[in-house]
């Protein structure tokens, strides 16, 4: 399928006037709107092809098919791109699968243009007066790069009425190769004798309909986009990226300038093994801000093949308001056929969120446990090589560190992700549109392979 006008040579220059003439075949009155430029005139009453270069309008081909009226009547005037155009001719074409129609537009100062209607969208085509350039392996016109679309196809005229500056007739065939850029289509038309280039611009929906007073067409959602159809998400994506960049910059500034955490208290406590729970109270923990986060870190560097359950309660001295938290410090090591191994975090931290101002005590319930390797040798076994296990500890020394404030990194990351969500959605939609738009060429290639 194609949406671009087909081959015609560049029209001659010169003045033009409107003349009223009679069809020599049917006698009907016909208007010669571009006198002096028109070569071929199709009677809108009987469909006969007349030679407009002859004063007596000699009949070239008599009508041999039923006439039908184009959607935009001949002689209609409309303004497109700031130019008032008059419809002088109408033809229908097909590539064997999809039909489309073209209106020949005329303006005494601008010359000719083509209004191409694929049944869904209109585009306005102008003949190029120069050959497109070749930059970076792509055709280019005025700096715009055009990428190939589908393979070259044959376009055939199936109906024609009105006046034209070339001798058009039903059955006329040309070979067409299309190239696309967002909003633009570049078409090369060859008929054996010559090649012409046409650049057509996709018109926004409703523009051509409003210009020529025909009913507006509704967009058909979900249909495959045309090869020259620009992504409707491109502009919104660009705007969203600018907004997201500004918002991210503000967030980063707030994150960088936020006060860092401050050490409030450090204590070392010993947690005995094999005791159900060992209770320790440390304090005071002074929290001067209205609300702040509190981070408690327990460092048990001597822990080995054992674990430590730590339950915290941050208790406000005056109100006895309590905030609970917990952590587990553990460390295990050993040796197997692959060598030495170790695992476990003996330096766990816990963060309390949004703790109100006050003086607090940190109540710690600690319980230390030994891990017994079920595959280990019995206690009476003494290895021949290497040292025996270290003497068992009675207690685990734990260094507790309490800090207030800080900890906004995760929050900052979360908000940056939230801000990036909408641009990401738009980018996915844009990429999907572009993939489907470019899919024209891919699907045609696949058809050829089959």
């Amino acid at each position: 399928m194609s949406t671009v006008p087909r081959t015609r040579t560049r029209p001659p220059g010169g003045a033009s006037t409107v003349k009223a003439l009679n069809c020599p075949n049917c006698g009907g009155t016909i208007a010669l709107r571009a006198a002096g430029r028109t070569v071929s005139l199709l009677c809108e009453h009987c469909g006969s092809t007349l030679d407009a270069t002859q004063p007596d309008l000699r009949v070239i081909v008599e009508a041999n098919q039923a006439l039908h009226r184009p959607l935009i009547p001949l002689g209609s005037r409309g303004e497109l791109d700031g130019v008032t155009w008059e419809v002088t001719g109408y033809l229908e074409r097909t590539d064997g699968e999809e039909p489309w129609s073209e209106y020949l537009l005329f303006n005494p100062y601008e010359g000719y243009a083509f209004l191409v209607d694929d049944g869904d969208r209109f585009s306005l085509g102008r003949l190029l007066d120069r050959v497109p350039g070749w930059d970076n392996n792509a055709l280019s016109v005025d700096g715009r790069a055009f990428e190939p679309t589908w393979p070259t196809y044959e376009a055939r005229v199936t109906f024609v009425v009105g006046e034209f500056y070339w001798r058009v007739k039903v059955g006329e065939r040309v070979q067409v190769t299309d190239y696309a850029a967002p909003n633009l289509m570049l078409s090369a038309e060859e008929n054996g004798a010559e090649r012409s280039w046409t650049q057509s611009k996709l018109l926004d929906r409703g523009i051509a309909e409003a210009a020529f007073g025909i009913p507006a067409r509704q967009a058909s959602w979900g249909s495959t986009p045309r090869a020259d159809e620009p992504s409707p998400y491109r502009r919104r994506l660009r705007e969203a990226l600018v907004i997201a960049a500004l918002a991210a910059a503000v967030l980063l500034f707030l994150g960088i300038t936020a006060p860092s955490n401050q050490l409030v208290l450090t204590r070392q406590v010993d947690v005995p093994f094999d005791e159900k729970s060992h209770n320790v109270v440390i304090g005071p923990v002074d929290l001067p801000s209205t609300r702040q986060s509190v981070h408690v870190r327990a460092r048990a560097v001597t822990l080995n093949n054992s674990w430590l359950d730590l339950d915290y309660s941050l208790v406000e001295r005056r109100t006895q308001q309590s905030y609970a938290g917990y952590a587990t410090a553990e460390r295990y090591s050993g040796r197997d056929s692959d060598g030495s191994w170790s695992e476990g975090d003996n330096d766990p931290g816990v963060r309390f969120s949004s703790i109100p101002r006050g003086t607090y005590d940190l109540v710690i319930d600690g319980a230390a446990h030994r891990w017994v390797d079920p595959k280990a040798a019995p206690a009476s076994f003494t290895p021949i090589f290497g040292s025996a296990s270290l003497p068992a500890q009675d207690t685990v020394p734990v260094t507790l560190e309490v800090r207030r404030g800080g900890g906004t990194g995760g929050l900052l990351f979360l908000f940056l992700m939230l801000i990036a969500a909408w641009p990401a959605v738009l980018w996915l939609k844009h990429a999907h549109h572009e993939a489907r738009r470019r899919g024209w060429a891919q699907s045609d290639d696949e058809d050829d392979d089959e």
Partner: protein
Amino acid sequence: MSRSSIFYALICLGLIALYASAARNGYSPFAQGGARPFFFYGSRGPTHK
């Protein structure tokens, strides 16, 4: 600027205000505060195979 972009800009302003408020109040969605669940008690050990 499209209507959706204006709406998105307003949402961004809201998110910035929310972040500033959360950071000021020391709020963190990743805070681990709370009592230890009962199933967190019990025997532990390495996951090493």
